[in-house]
């Protein structure tokens, strides 16, 4: 486990030195501008506007980092051959993969936590004082992080066997289709062959379900998020990530580093 942590820490260090966390400046400016503006133009819906804007920004920025850095986690190391000296050390390939995943997840966690803190400062500015119901925002941030973990795992999987450009396309395609799994599951049409409908339903169970992680509306309206959903989403993300990482590990363990 120590070796996984060593790789993870180095991946985090790389992200920090490559100035990935600079996006926080953009987020801070966005929150300051929104907090000032929202006080001027809206009456009574300050919380909704700030929370929706803040959570959307946290999600979009996180997704951009997860996809664009995630797809290079392995392929960049292979292209630059930085991996060669490392794999000659007593490090198993799956340990390297898990470390890369953990490192980017740590980066995203730090980034998301900083953005969440900024969101709460902005919320505190437009609405005094904060209430217990605002905890729903914290849960929404946690769900975003779970969603990002899934995206990183997928990006890492594609990073193991294809080019960064294709990996971006595949990850984005899976993400977008994962937003519509509920529709796929319940879609009924007379013009569609029954076999296609069955296939669509099966596919909806295989695809990552990103819909369940979206609780932005509840958070924006200060509605409590059920504990069962928190447990369910945590377990879903953990199991899905494990399966994707296991698949990535199987592929990468057989890969020749030419």
């Amino acid at each position: 486990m120590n070796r996984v942590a060593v790789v993870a820490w180095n991946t985090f260090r790389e992200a920090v030195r490559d100035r990935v966390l600079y996006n926080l400046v953009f987020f801070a400016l966005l929150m300051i501008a929104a907090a000032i503006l929202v006080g001027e133009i809206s009456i009574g819906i300050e919380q909704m506007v700030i929370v929706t804007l803040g959570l959307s920004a946290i999600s979009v920025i996180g997704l951009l980092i997860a996809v664009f850095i995630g797809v290079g986690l392995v392929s960049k190391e292979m292209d630059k051959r930085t991996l060669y000296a490392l794999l000659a050390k007593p490090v198993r390939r799956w340990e390297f993969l898990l470390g890369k995943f953990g490192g980017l997840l740590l980066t995203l966690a730090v980034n998301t936590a900083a953005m969440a803190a900024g969101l709460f400062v902005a919320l505190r500015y437009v609405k005094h004082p904060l209430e217990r119901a605002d905890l729903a925002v914290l849960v929404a941030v946690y769900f975003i992080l779970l969603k990002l973990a899934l995206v990183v795992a997928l990006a890492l999987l594609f990073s193991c066997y294809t080019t960064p450009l294709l990996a971006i396309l595949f990850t984005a395609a899976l993400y977008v289709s994962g937003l519509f799994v509920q529709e796929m599951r319940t879609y009924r049409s007379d013009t569609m062959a029954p076999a296609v409908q069955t296939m669509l339903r099966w596919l909806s169970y295989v695809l990552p379900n990103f819909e369940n992680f979206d609780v932005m509306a509840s958070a924006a309206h200060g509605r409590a998020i059920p504990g069962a959903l928190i447990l369910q989403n945590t377990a879903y993300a953990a199991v899905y990530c494990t399966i994707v990482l296991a698949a990535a590990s199987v592929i990468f363990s057989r890969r020749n580093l030419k």
Partner: protein
Amino acid sequence: MASAAIEIENLTKDYPFGFLHLRKKTSLEGLTMSVEDGEVFGFLGPNGAGKSTTIKLLVGLIFPTAGTARILGKSINDISMHRDIGYLPEQPYFYDYLTASELLDYFARFHEFTAAERRERVQRMLKKVGLETARKIQLRKYSKGMLQRVGLAQAILHDPKVVILDEPMSGLDPVGRREVRDIILELKRDGKTVLFSTHILSDAEMLCDRVGVIVGGKLRGVGAPDEMVDMKPRGMEILFEYAVGDANLHTLLSKATQTGKRYRLQVAEEEVYATLEQLRGAGAKILSMTQVKATLEEYFMHLVEADRAQAAAVEVSGK
């Protein structure tokens, strides 16, 4: 007799290619050889001969199509084998956002050292490869030669019993090459086994107990450098100075290579004394005499050309 540190048996590597990966290119074909414990072994061959393929197979970066290899009695698939080997990749490249100390510390963390041991080892290695003063500079600012030194430092950082170096001299200036040679000799003195690939035959001649020549994915010859080439002297080379014109020396001088007043003349062993007499009689000043032997380079070129001729013959008969 010393035991083998590296045993390679019928190691073969094919790479599939083409749209459906149905065709294959053989990079290494049935390689069988061994490197004895404490030996410095040079792996020679032209570009694309299979040297790097063999090395990558040994350190587990690629997987064999057939055959096996063992290092210190352990299979190359055994991860614990990696504790005892050090590896320098060809044209090494490392995380350029790290400094040399940080990189070495990072690699040291994969071995079971305490923090104090790590610090001490990193310091010692940086000193050994002459990068003590550059230790706090990010690797993105390093020259190719400096990266090669960092690569060497990370390969020997954990005091491995077997050191595998892929083209350790490439990209180095004469001073750097000399330093790498010294490090290899020091490793030998410490009883380590060193396997390195190189294009530079003089380095191999100077450092290696044995060399293996690989051409076209096949091992063409293994042995001590002086055993591999025909060591029977071919004659003598006489270096002399001569300024006066003497018609009697005309035949001799026409066979010699002239540089200013100096002449370099190669003569058969049985003609040496007669030639010397003749030169002395004509007032030439003899500067030196050296035995002329076949070099490893000639042997190497002979093998490479034979391989090319064979490949051309196969191509013609194939048509």
